[in-house]
């Protein structure tokens, strides 16, 4: 471990994509950077456990701002990280005939306005009759978190000025006159003039540890189902929108598909500032509102919603686009309360203090990682 009381130019909490991206960027400039991670390896939570979608903006027909920004970053992301991108499949979006907040005409109009490609298909090719009023072939890819994580680890290993500590238990954050002092359970004391909170589900936990006002978020314990696609589905990704529907699409380069549904992916919600769930009482102290454990390693993780999600997909999809269950991944998802109506997913970069600097970043999308450039530049 680190020597007692070590000084760093930047300390980053969380070894997900945002944390390691920031570490690489600053490391390349020669700064001394330390990354602190609770887990034993990087990319264990939100970066890995999501639909692995590189968003082009189709997902946000009710928030042009989010859509246009996603589209803007899309090309940059697939150019920078092409080695982890899986693009050889047909990504199909469809608008459900009933219960959708957006219909066929509105979706086409939205794509034109956001200037993202969208070719209309016959819904009957994929869906049972009468269930979807429009289907579109779109340009959207998936990334492989495993490969992406390895790339960052390899890049950072080569830098003598950057260090990643795993299995870290943070105990205390104190603000000094010109630096933050972090105390770990191991007794180590760390000091830095720039602290970046790049955690996702734990973002308010870090903020409250440092004594700052939390983000206004609600939490959802989400389940992503991994499934084995049958032949016809193998090279197709399907997303039915915009409402209580589902998506089944390739999960990076793993060969599996991820299955999610708006109604059944979130298992339980918490509206408290710190994530408080009933299942935490059954976790034998592994997980608490102050420190989230990893749901996948937890004894109290929820039962899979596979019967629900698969039945919803079965209701819509033609029988030849079948799939079978492989496993479930669980993760904690914070959602900004303000974004419920327009379903937008803004990246929030909040600088709560300057000199010493404390920055918290919260974003639900992988390709908006470039939003960090701005805040990391001026120091």
């Amino acid at each position, binding site marked *: 471990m680190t020597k007692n009381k070590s000084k760093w130019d930047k300390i980053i909490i969380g070894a997900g994509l945002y944390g390691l991206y920031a570490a690489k960027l600053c490391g390349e400039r020669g700064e001394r950077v330390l990354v602190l991670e609770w887990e034993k390896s990087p990319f264990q939570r939100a970066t890995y456990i999501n639909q692995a979608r590189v968003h082009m903006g189709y997902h946000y027909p009710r928030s042009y701002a989010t859509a246009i920004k996603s589209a803007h970053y899309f090309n940059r992301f697939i150019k920078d990280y092409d080695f982890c991108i899986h693009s050889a499949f047909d990504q199909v979006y469809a608008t459900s005939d009933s219960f959708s907040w957006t219909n066929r005409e509105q979706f086409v109009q939205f794509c034109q306005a956001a200037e993202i490609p969208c070719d209309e298909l016959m819904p009957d090719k994929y869906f049972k*009759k009468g269930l979807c009023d429009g289907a579109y072939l779109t340009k959207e890819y998936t990334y492989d978190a495993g490969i992406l994580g390895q790339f960052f680890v390899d890049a950072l290993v080569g830098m003598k000025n950057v260090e990643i500590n795993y299995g870290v238990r943070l105990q205390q954050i104190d603000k000094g006159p010109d630096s933050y002092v972090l105390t770990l359970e191991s007794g180590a004391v760390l000091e830095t003039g720039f602290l970046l909170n790049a955690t996702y589900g734990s973002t308010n936990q870090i903020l409250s540890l440092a004594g700052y006002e939390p983000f206004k978020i609600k939490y959802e314990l989400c389940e992503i189902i991994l499934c084995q696609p049958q032949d016809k589905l193998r090279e197709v990704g399907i997303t039915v929108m915009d409402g*209580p529907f589902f998506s089944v699409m390739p999960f990076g380069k793993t060969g599996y598909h991820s299955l999610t549904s708006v*109604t059944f992916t979130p*298992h339980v*919600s918490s509206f408290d500032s710190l994530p408080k769930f009933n299942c935490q009482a059954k976790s034998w102290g592994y997980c608490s509102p102050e420190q989230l454990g990893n749901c996948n390693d937890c004894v109290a993780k929820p039962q899979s919603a596979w*019967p*629900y999600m698969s039945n919803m997909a079965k209701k819509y999809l033609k029988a030849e686009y079948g799939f079978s269950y492989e496993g479930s991944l669980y993760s904690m998802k914070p959602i900004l309360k303000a974004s419920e109506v327009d379903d937008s997913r803004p990246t929030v970069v909040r600088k709560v203090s300057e000199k010493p600097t404390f920055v918290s970043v919260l974003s639900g999308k992988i390709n908006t990682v470039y939003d960090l450039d701005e805040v990391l530049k001026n120091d």
Partner: protein
Amino acid sequence: MTRQQEKKVTVRDKEKNFVSAVIYIYNDEERIRDFLEKINAVLSANFESYQIICVNDASDDNSLAVIREIGKSISGTVINVVNMSFYQGVELAMNAGIDLSIGDFVFEFDNMVMDYEAELMMYVYDRSLTGFDIVNAAPKKCGRKTSRLFYAVFNRYSRSPHPLRTENFRVLSRRAINRVHSMSKTIPYRKAVYANCGLKIDTIEYDNDRSCTKGYDKETRYQRKEMASDSLILFTNVAYKMTLLAAVFMMVATFGIGIYTLVSYVTEDVVSGYTSMMLVIVFGFFGVFVILAVIIKYLSMLMELVFSKQKYTIESVETISE
């Protein structure tokens, strides 16, 4: 239904089929708890996976709060609520609930009056497995005179192969739901569309406990009257027949007056100008009634082509868990 049947139901293995129960709720706060608990007990005992969709038709009382409370006490994400934006009546509201359901089989509960044993649900379900896409559960005795009158007129004038009657709940296969949706874009009166969908239908009668009958409030009574007249116009030819008959009768009558005018011109001594004036009038009216008959025919054809009813408007959809 026999005792043996009931016993068989309680000891068998859980069904693999996914079922949805869609329940209509409108100002029913006293009934909800009991009803949901009973239904949940039957479903959880008999099915590996199921969902309960409560369609809250803009209730003014505490119905929604009661559902939320019960939802929290039931483990898993079993209960969903569809909140209608404003009161839209049982038909549109139930359509919304059915559109949201994902089950292979769907139970439809138009009301929460449980004048039967909860196990009847399984008897009805088992019946559908023997090859019926739609199975209705109907009380033997129907209390309301107006209902009986409506069904008598409806069944007399509709060409439906299955006569309609008062039903309490039913189970539908996914195939039946897909069929009725591909038949017509909107479904103003489910029972009539189901009866005409061409799939196998069965009805199970049960001895009902008439003490449970529920009174309707003013709004619901009005809605039911509207529904009844709409259905008679849409699904039976009673209105078409009556208006066409009237038009033809008037045509014949004017024609008769024309004949009489001509006859009296020859046989009687009439004032000059009377005959020509009468002939002009007769000719004009005859033309009007012919045109009316054609228009009625046109209208009835148009109505058969499109049901002009709007689809439902929903406010929100929520999943409730512990």
